[in-house]
């Protein structure tokens, strides 16, 4: 691989991640001396990353890709064991993701000047430094060419979000939320790391590069050969497919943690304690996106296991509905958005498990745009409301902040999935792909997929409802407080990112209009074509995945028109939005209708008591076990030690003359006895 000629342009690929890493250093150590306290470094760096990412996108479009090792962490011993490397893989998937991440990160940096600098926050060099770390880690994760490197930067993404969620460390809430975020995702990462280690142990020595994602020697490909009986791998006594399912599910642990899927989703709503621009970054392009991106990155491996796919689809579908129901009752604008993120990533998982690789990547793309938009919009509202986030204190902001309103509306239409906004196309495709594979697949997986589909479909209604409940409560009706009456103005640095994202949220769905393509026969599924462009030898293109899904997992697509399912989901979305309009959009002073739900509302407000359950697991079980272990250690283990010593002291008390009570005498006694012992052995051994 090293001998391969690498196009010059890819020599600059590492800079995409290195630039934000440099901005970490510059902002952290020299930020104080800049007028914008380090924002300059971050903006320049992410702008550079964005430009380079776009160049990569163009290069990949021109048919050139790269997949090679760059840096050796640990050398391998020839024949005996493998080395550990860092490298880059730039193919259509990673080029697309690099562009998304650097774009969102750039806009978040610009927005931060409005949200943080203009609001007189302190500690800004630290803030911009941590943003740089966050961006750099995510970008490096995206272009990782092997799963160990992916894990490494996955962890660093977790560190950066810990630091940023806990940015306001002087209050009690943020440090606690930061700890929870890191700990819950670490719990998932534990399974991920076991999976990584397992993958290396399984595919070495079948391949000398067992961790690679793409190419003939990559683990998904070797696994495929092993299933076909063309390669021998170490499956630790299991059937190959069973073992690959186990490995896939282990790695999925990390995905469920980072992408906030049930049951490891609880950290994400708490993470709202961080500054709002950080939330935008976490939800749209970095932390949470990392999980599902990983599944897409190693899709060739998951496609080998119908069980793993079924688990992904079911987890995703369930999470989509589960989170959407909680979003219905929340009172704070960011809380609603947090649950919507969990729910939307559920859709992406549903798409991946349902055999819709393109659909899932599509939804990942559109969601990145509209969720960043909604969070930045919420940030704008929060600035206006003097950091009051309760929607019941808002109302009537539509006239006062039109840029925010219209861009937020664009994002909301996309989130709710209303034609022709971005979310409609992608969510519809996710549901459609799951449905056709659920109907067409002859094996037991079909039931899992159809259940997942049903969850997802019902969630569409809830999404429409909570999204427009949020819009109406925030922007419509009469102002309900003095602050809402006279909101704080926002500047260009807030409005410009909103405008850019607002336009994108309306239009980005046009990259893959499957129903229209079906209807007109035009070849306008650009994203599908794009992702299918990965070079044959990488084996990461769409038609290869489709083939693997068919042969290994027996996924087959039923031939039905996308129009009817699309119409159903659109009708549900409109139904949810319509109900929200009925309840909250017509009156000048809407009533708190969800309170009529009574005990169901209490259940939803408490997030199905899952948080309480997890706190109980941590403090009620683990901490108690730790305390018991401590008592055992002090009482029994150390007790035996002290017991032995008091017995010897007691017997020693007969020899009063030596037992002087001065500890150092014991010490010299012991040393003396050692010397005597050596002498004894010397005589025994006949040295003298």
């Amino acid at each position, binding site marked *: 691989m090293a001998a391969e000629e690498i196009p010059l342009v890819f020599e600059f690929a590492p800079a995409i991640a290195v630039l934000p890493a440099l901005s970490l250093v510059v902002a952290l150590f020299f930020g104080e001396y800049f007028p914008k306290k380090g924002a300059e470094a971050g903006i320049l760096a992410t702008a550079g990353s964005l430009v380079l990412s776009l160049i990569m996108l163009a290069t990949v479009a021109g048919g050139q890709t790269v997949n090679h090792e760059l840096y050796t962490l640990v050398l391998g011993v020839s024949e005996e064991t493998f080395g550990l490397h860092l490298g880059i893989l730039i193919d259509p998937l990673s080029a697309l993701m690099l562009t998304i991440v650097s774009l969102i990160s750039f806009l978040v940096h610009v927005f931060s000047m409005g949200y943080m600098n203009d609001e007189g926050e302190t500690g800004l060099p630290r803030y911009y430094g941590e943003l740089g770390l966050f961006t750099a880690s995510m970008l490096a994760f995206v272009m990782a060419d092997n799963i160990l490197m992916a894990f490494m930067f996955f962890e660093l993404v977790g560190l950066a979000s810990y630091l940023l969620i806990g940015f306001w460390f002087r209050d009690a809430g943020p440090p606690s939320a930061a*700890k929870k975020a890191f700990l819950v995702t670490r*719990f998932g990462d534990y399974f991920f790391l076991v999976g990584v280690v397992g993958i290396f142990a399984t595919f070495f020595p079948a391949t000398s590069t067992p961790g690679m994602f793409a190419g003939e020697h990559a683990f998904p490909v070797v696994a495929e050969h092993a299933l076909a009986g063309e390669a021998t791998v170490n499956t630790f006594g299991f059937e190959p497919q069973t073992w690959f399912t186990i490995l896939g599910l282990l790695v999925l642990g990390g995905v469920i943690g980072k992408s906030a899927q049930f049951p490891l989703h609880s950290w994400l709503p708490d993470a709202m304690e961080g500054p709002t621009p950080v939330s935008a970054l976490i939800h749209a392009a970095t932390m949470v996106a990392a999980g599902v991106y990983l599944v897409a990155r190693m899709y060739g491996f998951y496609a080998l296991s119908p069980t793993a796919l079924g688990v992904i689809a079911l987890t995703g579908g369930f999470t989509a509905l589960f989170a959407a129901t909680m979003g219905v009752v929340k009172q704070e604008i960011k809380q609603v958005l947090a649950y919507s993120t969990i729910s939307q990533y559920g859709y992406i998982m549903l798409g991946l498990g349902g055999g819709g690789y393109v659909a899932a990547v599509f939804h990942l793309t559109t969601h990145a745009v509209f969720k960043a938009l909604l969070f930045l919009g919420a940030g704008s509202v929060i600035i206006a409301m003097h950091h009051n986030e309760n929607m019941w204190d808002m109302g009537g902001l539509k006239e006062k902040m039109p840029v925010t309103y219209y861009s937020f509306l664009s994002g909301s239409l996309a989130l709710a999935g209303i034609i022709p906004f971005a979310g409609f196309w992608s969510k519809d495709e996710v549901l459609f792909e799951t449905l056709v594979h659920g109907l067409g697949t002859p094996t037991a997986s079909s039931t899992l997929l159809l259940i997942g589909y049903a969850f997802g479909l019902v969630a569409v209604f809830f999404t429409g409802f909570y999204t427009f409940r949020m819009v109406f409560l925030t922007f419509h009706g009469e102002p309900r407080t003095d602050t809402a009456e006279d909101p704080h103005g926002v500047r260009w640095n807030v409005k410009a990112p909103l405008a850019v994202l607002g336009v994108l949220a309306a239009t980005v769905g046009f990259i893959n209009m499957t129903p229209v393509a079906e209807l007109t026969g035009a070849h306008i599924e650009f994203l599908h074509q794009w992702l299918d462009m990965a070079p044959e030898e990488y084996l990461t293109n769409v038609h290869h995945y489709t083939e693997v899904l068919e042969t290994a997992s027996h996924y087959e697509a039923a031939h039905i028109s996308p129009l009817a399912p699309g119409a159903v989901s659109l009708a549900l979305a409109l139904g949810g939005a319509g109900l929200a309009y009925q309840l909250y959009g017509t009156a000048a002073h809407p009533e708190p209708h969800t309170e009529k739900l009574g005990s169901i509302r209490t259940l939803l407000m408490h997030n199905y008591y899952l948080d309480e359950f997890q706190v109980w697991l941590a403090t009620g079980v683990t901490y108690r076990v730790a305390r018991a*272990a401590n008592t055992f250690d002090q009482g029994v283990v150390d007790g035996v030690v002290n017991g032995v010593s008091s017995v010897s002291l007691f017997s020693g008390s007969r020899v009063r003359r030596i037992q002087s009570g001065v500890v150092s005498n014991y010490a010299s006694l012991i040393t003396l006895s050692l010397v005597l012992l050596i002498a004894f052995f010397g005589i025994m051994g006949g040295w003298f």
Partner: protein
Amino acid sequence: MMVEALLAVTLIGAAMTFLSDDEWAGRVAAGISVLPVVGSLWMYANFQNVGNALLSGSLAYETTIDWIQLGGYTIQWHVGVDGVSMPLIALSTVLTTLAIVSAWTPIDERQSQFYGLMLLMEASLIGVFSALDFFAWFVFWEGVLIPMYFLIAVWGGPRRKYAAIKFFVYTNVASLVMFLGFMALVFGLGDSITVLGLPEIAQALREPGNLSTFFGMSPGVLRLVAFTAMFAGFAVKVPVFPLHTWLPDAHVEAPTPVSVMLAGVLLKMGTYALLRFNFTMLQETAKANAALIATFGVVSVIYGAMLALAQKDLKRIVAYSSISSMGYVILGLVAFTPHGVGGATFQMISHGLISGLMFMAVGVIYNETHTRMVGDISGIADRMPWTVGIFLAAAFGYMGLPLMSGFIGEVLVFLGSFRSTVLPNAPLFTAAAMFGIVVVAGYLLWAMQRTLFGEYELATDYEVGRAPLHDVVPLAILLVLVIALGSSPGIAYNMIQRAVNPILNLAFALGGVL
């Protein structure tokens, strides 16, 4: 003659420090201790040898002189350095200098004796990691204990007497048990050895038939008895569950710079000796009992971490977490795979740096607040931002954050033990030990949330300000080392791997793209 030069400089330095004025002793000791640092780093930089000191290959800085005749045996002055001991020697010298500088603030009485003992201990440590004759090795091994005993007993906390005597008696009894086990082996070997050199004994033991019946024990039983005795003896030092209870007491009572040395280097004596004696000389026995040994390792990891979770004293938290981290070393050694043994050795170096850093950071906070109890402090991030920043980085290093040395050590151990063919059910053992990475995050993040963050409060009557520069600089140096080893592990790992390969009957060379 480099090893002898290091020893001589350190011993002369110790003498000069003992004689110097209390007021200047700290500066004198720090200045002198820079010499062995420079010397060992020069040795490190010029180290190109491959092979294992006990088995085969070329040794660096080797001296062999016949010394004393004892009966049928020749006692030699035999020192030499291989890829396992070189990083440990460098770790000892660097950590000693940094610990001495970090003692400037907290040590305010009998300074000349304190710093003199620190240098005396350093000399013994260099000796332990370079001596290749059992006699000299054992003298150095015991020679570490005596300065440590006084350092705890004189400059320690309120229960220093109890902790010091517990440390001394416990580790001395352990030495005794180990000594008995080793001597039984020597006598069992009979005439097949004429010197007490470790390489000669190791090679004699690898040849079948050399070991004869001793004290009514057949060679097989003798191996098992000797292995058990030596394992128990060294396990105290590591420490391995259930022989660990001296450690938290010693750490809590010891002054911070002494804790740095205890956790940073002294614990590694145990794993170093295990590697040299149990896992090199008697590896058939180790392989046959791999599951049992791995169980001790895994229990240490999880049990130590659970105990850390229950503690309220920051120093106790770090002390118990050392037990946890050293458990990984046991697991890696017993795997008998290149990544396992190499990773375990790398983890020794890594843990030496990270635990030293962690104890120093706790010490700096203690210097300013005069308390280490979790409930007594909160929100000091505001008052000492750089110290807290480094504390945070150290804690994440402990959690095995990538690009820091702990990650490389742990991941190599996991990669190595998962693939082990010696250890039955290796994946299950590995997965069980790996759960330590969750618990460690739990107790460190929780402790940090309560002490570093939140509103500033302090239960003691001290005004917390920024720490003096000479308190923070050692922290920064250690952090740089941790990051350097984590992002460029080859600095240490390559020589380590070349030295452990003979243990696994592998060729010396590293393959792949060089």
